């Protein structure tokens, strides 16, 4: 990683929580990063590569609609790893 780095909260749910073996973590991330690059890094680091293709992200409680979108982080932001939904 190059450029400024911020520390954010990462939340894991359902299958991703089980694989990561934790419900939350604090992680240093680039202040500016393409969502898919970030997902690559987190999947490797937290053991989620087996389900990576089904994951999406939420930044401060809003879905990142497209993995090609750029995310702008501030210190303390909340990032969630979202496996396929199954509410209802």
């Amino acid at each position: 990683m190059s450029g400024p780095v911020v520390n954010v909260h990462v939340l894991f749910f359902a299958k991703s929580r089980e694989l990561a073996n934790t419900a939350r973590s604090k992680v240093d991330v680039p202040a500016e990063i393409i969502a898919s690059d970030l997902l690559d890094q987190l999947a490797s680091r937290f053991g989620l590569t087996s389900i990576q293709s089904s994951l999406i992200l939420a930044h401060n409680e809003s879905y990142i609609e497209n993995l090609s979108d750029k995310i702008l982080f501030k210190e303390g932001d909340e990032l969630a790893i979202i496996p396929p939904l199954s509410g209802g």
Partner: protein
Amino acid sequence: MDHVKLVQDPIDITHIHQLLADEGCGASSVFVGTTRDNFQGKKVVSLAYEAYDNMALKEMKKICSDLRLKWPELKHIVIYHRLGTVPVCEASVVIATSSPHRSEALESVSFAIDQLKTRVPIWKKEIYEGDHISEWKENKE
């Protein structure tokens, strides 16, 4: 009024109907999603639900706003989802609306349950009888 909640205890269906009551309303529609006892031949004993609580509530409130845009006549909207362990036959989700006329109540409930399944961050795991490994489910698009 909008009533949006994540609950840990059984949902009281009589209370839901009370929330819908309104002298100006001629129609209420209530959808209840319950735990089924089977999936692909395996006996389901319960479901375990978890949510991204804050975001789930936010998305549930957005569904309410969307409903009111599409059906401005709606009076009350209730969206309750239960979390934790839900035994077979008990309600995991209740979606209910009331309105002066029936079509808004019926259509809005159908729309809302579809929306809930595609955008509210809630997950369920089916717990099976016997040795079958429990499984995280996936809603179809």
